[in-house]
């Protein structure tokens, strides 16, 4: 079925670029049977050493637990969870905790949310119906990719295509950006100005895989005919080859344009199917299926495997090994090329198991460094010498605030297992409304003044987080006479760590102004804690 055709000089360039990349693979010295986190630390440390930089210390227990939980289950720890983790002197408690979190249903839900954000890119609709079961069974990433391109409406996987089918240029580019880390949109009008390897053929080649896809009522269909034509910068008209990003051109059966009569007939048939709410017939040759196959083939899957590794890395470290994540090309090499190659190869060898990858990364020392840098100049970010401070997603922030605002007795230490998970899920659900008021962070995210005004003045802040009720933190604090105890409980609940001595002193002094009214005192304190940057960021 497939054939490599050297159709143009530019494609030849491209092939050579890929072979260079493959050469790195062969040189990759790390053996396959080492743990992921050891490999991560080996390569990261190597560069730190070369740069003569001593990385930041490891984060303390409370910090590490909060970071790990935000990344794995999408929320900060409860006061009891933090206390228990800090108190434990069990060896391997970190690994044990990571495994426990990954096994929980919150992990699958958080993965689904994160993948949904990545795949939908803020577009309309969502993929949660599909991603829920997929993340719960840890479906391999390559399988998910196939599902999304196959676009089965029953499973909800069709939303990826459906939300973009009206704009095929966008569909082609989004697919390329999301799954392959390659942004070819510049090549739409001209060959890419920075990357000689990306030509118009790359963009229109990608588009060719989708050009026969169309929407018919509630269903997607794919035709057996149709070619993509484009104008070169010289004004010449060309038919786009069915070409993957690596330059591989696929062979396909001859197709001819139908006659007007046939088109009319087709239209009639489609109208009928639309009316009867039935899907259009499957094509005898599916270009989308070809894309799914070629992208995953052994010699072609470099983009696919590296892109997801890079995106997961970005999620957990705040910066990709290749940054930005949609600029994976030879002119923009990875900070740690061997590490990226190794991780990608490991992922392929382990059946695209994302859980395994995530687990490996969060167990590394590179992941668990402190985010504080007390020296003069902070080291270059691509060295990963110090943890980055990352803004929370709307779901992380809203759920964490919710937990912080609740009476700690709502999550007692002895509550575990299903009962605990159930309660957490309730909290996640109740946080959804508020999450919609928070902006989804992008790279170099800036907090808006709208958000600051919201937290300062919106009635909802009071009603959601500062309520005087039996199940709320404020309600609990109000009943306590000793200001030291008030501060202790409040800080643990909101920051998931104990207060330092000087913090406690300042806060107790602050509370002394409100002796006459413990409710107001509690509301003032909780508001000030909840709106700090410490709560807003994953640090």
């Amino acid at each position: 079925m497939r054939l490599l055709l050297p159709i143009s000089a530019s494609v030849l360039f491209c092939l050579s670029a890929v072979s260079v990349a493959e050469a790195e693979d062969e040189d990759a010295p790390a053996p396959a049977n080492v743990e992921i986190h050891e490999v991560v630390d080996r390569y990261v440390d190597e560069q730190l050493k070369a740069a003569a930089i001593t990385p930041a210390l490891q984060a303390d227990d409370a910090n590490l637990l909060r970071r790990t939980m935000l990344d794995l289950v999408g929320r900060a720890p409860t006061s009891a969870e933090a206390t228990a983790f800090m108190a434990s002197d069990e060896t391997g408690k970190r690994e044990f905790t990571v495994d426990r979190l990954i096994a929980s249903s919150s992990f699958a839900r958080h993965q689904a949310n994160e993948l949904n954000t990545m795949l939908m890119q803020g577009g309309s609709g969502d993929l949660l119906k599909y991603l829920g079961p997929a993340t719960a069974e840890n479906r391999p990433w390559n399988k998910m990719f196939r599902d999304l391109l196959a676009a089965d409406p029953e499973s909800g996987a069709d939303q990826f295509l459906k939300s973009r089918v009206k704009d095929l240029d966008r569909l082609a580019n989004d697919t390329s950006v999301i799954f392959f880390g390659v942004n070819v949109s510049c090549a739409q009008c001209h060959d890419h100005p920075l990357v000689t390897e990306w030509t118009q053929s790359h963009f229109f080649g990608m588009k060719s895989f989708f050009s026969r896809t169309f929407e018919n009522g509630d269903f997607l269909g794919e035709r057996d005919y149709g070619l993509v034509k484009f104008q070169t910068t010289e004004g010449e008209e060309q038919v786009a080859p069915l070409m993957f990003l690596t330059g591989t051109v696929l062979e396909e059966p001859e197709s001819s344009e139908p006659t007007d009569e046939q088109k009319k007939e087709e239209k009639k048939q489609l109208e009928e199917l639309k009316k009867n709410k039935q899907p259009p017939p499957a094509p005898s040759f599916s270009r989308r299926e070809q894309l799914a196959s070629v992208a995953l083939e052994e010699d072609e899957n470099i983009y696919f495997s590296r892109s997801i590794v890079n995106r997961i890395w970005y999620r957990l470290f705040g910066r990709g090994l290749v940054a930005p994540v949609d600029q994976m090309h030879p002119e923009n090499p990875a900070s740690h090329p061997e590490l990226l190659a190794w991780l990608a190869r490991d992922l392929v060898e382990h059946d695209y198991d994302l859980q395994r990858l995530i687990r490996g990364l969060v167990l590394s020392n590179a992941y668990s460094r402190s985010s504080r840098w007390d020296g003069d100049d902070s080291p270059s970010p691509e060295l990963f010498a110090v943890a980055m401070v990352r803004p929370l997603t709307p779901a992380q922030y809203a759920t964490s605030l919710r937990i912080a605002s609740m009476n700690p007795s709502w999550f007692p230490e002895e509550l575990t297992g299903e009962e605990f998970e159930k309660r957490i899920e309730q909290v996640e659900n109740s946080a959804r409304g508020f999450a919609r008021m928070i902006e989804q962070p992008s790279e170099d995210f800036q907090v808006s003044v709208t958000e600051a005004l919201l937290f300062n003045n919106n009635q909802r802040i009071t009603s959601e987080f500062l309520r005087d009720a039996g199940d709320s933190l404020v309600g609990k604090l109000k009943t306590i006479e000793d200001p030291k105890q008030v501060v202790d409980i409040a800080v643990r609940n909101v920051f998931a760590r104990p207060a330092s001595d000087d913090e406690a002193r300042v806060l107790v002094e602050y509370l002394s102004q409100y002796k006459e009214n413990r409710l107001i005192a509690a509301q003032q304190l909780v508001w000030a804690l909840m709106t700090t940057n410490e709560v807003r960021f994953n640090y």
Partner: protein
Amino acid sequence: MTRRNSSGGLSDQAISRRSFLGSTLATTAVLTAADMTVLDALQSPAMAEELKRKDKRVIVFWLAGGASQLETWDPKPGRPTGGPYRAIQTNVPGIQISELMPKMSQRLQHTSIIRSLNTKIGDHGGGATLMHLGRRDESALKLPDLGAMIAREMGQIDSAVPDYVAFYTATEGRGGGTGQSGFLGARYAPMFLTTESKPADLSLPPGIGEIDHQTRADLRQLLSNRFSEGRKSSSLGSHNEAYARVRGLMSSEQLFDISGEPQSIRDQYGPTLFGEQTLVARRLIEAGTPFVKVSRAWWDSHGQNFETHLELVTELDHVMSGLLDDLEQRGLLDNTLVITMSEFGRTPNINASLGRDHFASAWSVSLTGCGIKGGSVYGKSDEDGQTVADGEIGAAQVFATIFHALGIDHEKEYYVGVRPVPLTDPGTEPLKEVIA
């Protein structure tokens, strides 16, 4: 500042105790204030040019849906495409505009009309994006719009007034008129007003007094500054900056309230919502807001073009001339650039519903005031308005001209990672003939 104390919050009597935070700061070595900003060049010693441009302002009339150039700035009287309206002589010899703008015709000495836009995009979404960004959208890189770039270039980091305000009351086409700050970040996103004439969350929430509101914010800042120590991140910095601007913005709430304006001024802007919002825009720029967009939707006159324009151009003529008079009387016109633009113009051909359809091949925008050579016309459409006959330009040149008129270098580059992104696309030149 006088607040009750019935629910136990701080009263006036407690004010003296507010010094507590200050004293704590002084005596608790570990809690010294961290630096507040890592972000903005405006904090660095300002060059003279930067100082100069700081008091410049922009008001954009966003005529959403596509206003007709033929019924505004580029009439074709007597031509088959001209429609029924006549052209009238303006106070600038040789320049005629549609008879629907009698008031503007007598104030054209401040305005430059550009009649030669060919922007090529004829759908609302694409056209609106183009005319907001000054270039085509990219799917992977979120670009900032005109307002965000101007807020970034001219706003002050700790400004007590918002630096980008956008009104869009009609629901049709609102998505295309929202505005976006793209890679510049939410710091430069517009304060976006729809049905409310005042922004949300500018006043104290019920149940809390002025002093309590302030002291909890002080405490928040104290804790946050402490957390910022040793942590460098522009996102983190932006969080503190956003909160630091809250008090100032709250004090700007009265800017959105026009009830105190004298009736003569109210009449000058007229009784319509568009007029009232334009008056708010004037109050904002007077107080220091560098960029306000007042959207007037919806001009999409596929049917009854002439009736629709009779309504909407008549209103625009009144509101715009009222604004220009007011700015002039206040001595603000030399520092304020007033722009009219849309996503595109309308077809010279008149359809069977006596409507005009989408048309991007030869249409007009206007620039008035700050830095503009008034009483001039740039470019020309052919006698029926079907094509550009002279001086064809796209959105980029309009943007470069706007930047230039405001004293901003249109070739200045932002960096997104390693990628330089200039304010306008490379090779774009401002229209020298339009600039004073």
